[in-house]
């Protein structure tokens, strides 16, 4: 009985949402199907074809790198990894952040104070230091990156959800529900949570690009994804080394990274409009 279907209808009418969502969907399909279609594997080195420029022959659309590996396949793989990291990191931050923030906001008082001071403390830790520490103590691990990125993003989410809950708690319809005799879980589930969804969805689409950037940054520093696997950030890093002789190695992954970031940002903006105007009209 929530407003989901109405919101969905509205989202489909919003050109920004449809446009950026469509491009993202296309990229995902391409990233999944590309490696299957291409005759090359992401590990196959071909020392006869080192640093070849993009060409349509043999489907080497993005050229090859300094080990003669096909860059189209590697880039598609990079998109897969980048999106996976971003989505998983966002889900981690969503799960922790929403729960943490809603509890702090609704219970309030001393519980709220303690919980939020903990968040402040975590904020104060320098993130890169934290990640390098993790990488040194444990082995370099794919999973670790998700955890590291999710572990900082949830702080923002918790703050936003808490703030929203605080203001929702004072709204008259929540008071009306209390007076009606509704229990606390019922109020949180039926009255607080549905009204949080708008903010949370929008915020998630904005944390995804943040996560992508952090992953790229880590990979660029050599702390993220390890060879022979790759991500867009790692590809950009490799491209920088051959900037003069083989500009495509830098330009293609960088352009795709920028495209993905733009799409997510537009999606976030568009969704915010969709959720906002519902209250206006």
């Amino acid at each position, binding site marked *: *009985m*929530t*407003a989901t279907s*109405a919101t969905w209808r509205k989202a489909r009418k919003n050109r920004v949402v449809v446009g950026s969502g469509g491009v993202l969907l296309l990229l995902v399909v391409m990233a999944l199907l590309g490696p299957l279609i291409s005759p090359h594997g992401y590990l196959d080195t071909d020392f006869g074809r080192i640093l070849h420029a993009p060409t349509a022959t043999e489907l080497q659309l993005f050229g090859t790198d300094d080990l003669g590996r096909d860059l189209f396949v590697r880039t598609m793989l990079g998109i897969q990894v980048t999106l996976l990291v971003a989505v998983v990191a966002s889900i981690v931050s969503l799960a922790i952040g929403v729960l943490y923030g809603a509890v702090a906001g609704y219970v309030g008082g001393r519980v709220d104070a303690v919980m939020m001071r903990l968040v402040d403390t975590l904020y104060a830790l320098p993130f890169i230091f934290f990640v390098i520490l993790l990488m040194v103590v444990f082995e370099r691990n794919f999973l670790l990156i998700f955890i590291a990125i999710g572990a900082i993003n949830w702080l923002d989410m918790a703050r936003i959800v808490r703030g929203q809950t605080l203001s929702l708690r004072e*709204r*008259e*319809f929540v*008071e*009306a*529900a*209390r*007076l*009606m*005799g*509704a229990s606390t879980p*019922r109020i949180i589930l*039926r*009255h607080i949570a*549905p*009204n949080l*969804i708008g903010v949370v969805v929008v915020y998630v689409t904005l944390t995804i690009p943040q996560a992508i950037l952090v992953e790229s940054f880590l990979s660029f520093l050599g702390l993220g994804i390890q060879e022979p696997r790759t991500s867009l950030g790692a590809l950009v890093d490799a491209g920088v080394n051959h900037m003069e002789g083989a500009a495509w190695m830098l330009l293609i992954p960088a352009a795709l990274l920028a495209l993905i970031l733009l799409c997510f940002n537009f999606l976030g903006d568009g969704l915010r409009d969709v959720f906002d105007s*519902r*209250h*206006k*009209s």
Partner: protein
Amino acid sequence: MSLLRVDKLSIRYGETSAVNDLSFSLRAGESVGLVGESGSGKTQTALALLGLLPANAITTGDIFLADTELLRAGKRALNKLRAERIAMIFQDPVQALNPYVRIGQQLRRILVAHGLAAGKAADERVIEMLQRVGLPDAERQYRAYPHQLSGGMQQRAMIASALLAEPDVLIADEPTTALDVTVQAQILELLEALREDTALLLITHDLGVVAGHCDRMLVLEQGRLVEEGWTGDIFAAPQHAHTQLLLAAAPRLDRTDVPRPVSGEEVLGIAGASVSYRERGRRGGRLQAVREVDLAVHRGETLAVVGESGSGKSSLLRAALGLVPMQSGCVSYCGEVLDGQVQSRAVAVRRDLQLVFQDPVGSLNPQMRVAAIVAEPLSIHEATLIADVRRRRVIEKLERVGLGEDYLQRFPHELSGGQAQRVAIARALILEPRVLVCDEAVAALDGSVRQQILALLRDVQDQSGLAIIFITHDLAVVRAISHRVLVMYMGRLVELADNETLFARTRHPYTRALIEAVPKPDPTAAAGNAPLRGEVPSILTPPSGCTFHPRCTYARDICSEEVPRARLLDTTMVACHRAEEI
């Protein structure tokens, strides 16, 4: 010679028309009232006059100020005209004043920006203007920030800023709607006194204000001018059906068909109730919102609780419902003492006490459809009900409040204010409660919608013997619907009497002032002087003795020394040392 001439003005937003073919003129020194319900295009017209319409508005027609066309004037030319030739007073001074800039600075900027004065001369003119609008201690207020002034004082500062550059035309958009009734009277009197030869366009929904303060009036309905003429003529013989409707819906105190007292057993009793809130920032400081109020409500009775903002009327009833904790005193329901917190009250009691809020849209969950909103009390209290029966009962209640089955799938934002309030009432009534508290439940609604809602409540009461407690600041509503009236001032009971007695034999000077301050929708009645000087003192530092004594014309020494006890005079409960003499 007309000073301002509007010729065939139309304003559209895409396909929606806001103002349609509106023509009128304003002569120097004249005061004209622009009347209509919400959405009739009053404010749109005002914004067009000032060139403040949003960019997506499509306008046709002309607006001439003397011989300058305003609608197509350039930005620079408009900036020069505004303040110097045409100025506006907004409804809410809190939003119209910049909170970060001192009052004096804000006013001074107008003079400097228009090159009318600079340096010391500007300061002096601002202070002089602040004195003229009746700000006490103008030199100190010059350095004050807006939040340090009360609402009435802020509106005075706003008026000062509008008049500073001596405009020819002054537009006042609902200038007193956000203010208490005793302050409203003062502000209207001030506007009248300051006008001299400025033409005034007074936009309002309150026909009482028009009757007392406007020479001519224009009646708008859905963007169209339906009637225009001398105020006296229109009030005496309205021609258009919509004007007749507005006049019939105008609140009046002089009606004779007031409800007679009823006798029924007591359902809700409040004894010695005090409510206080901890004050933010200051350690241990407490704000005493309600002090020792006793009250009993009977079956089938409507009790009105009246007072200006800060009188504690809402706090009292919220405490009775268990939404805010009571500091002392107790609440009983049908003779049984209730727990202070709503969560720890018996379920059976909770379903019998219901509340309708002031903001109808805000009290409905924006994510739920009407069907789910109205059904929610049922799914809490009668969870075993099968879906079909529940649906039938929801439809039945919606029909009871004048809405049909086709509203079931709507969201709150798809309803008008009146419809949303009907939904809120349907939700409150679905459990067949015995006490219904209405917290300013009709304050946000237009006149005709307000009457419908009041009639609906009365109807329900006649059928079910519901006891209604009506919190309001509007004495006309009180007069129309209540059996008994409780008047509160700064958290205390001031007077408690039945409707007839309260208006016919007023015992307390404050009640009397409140009644006199209500603008009467009758141009033949001389607009009386504002009955009260000053404003409600801060509740944080209440005056000694009788809290009303600094504003009371009857005050004697004893009034500032001793708190008057509520006592019974004939049938009236009154708290005043001099009640017998009044």
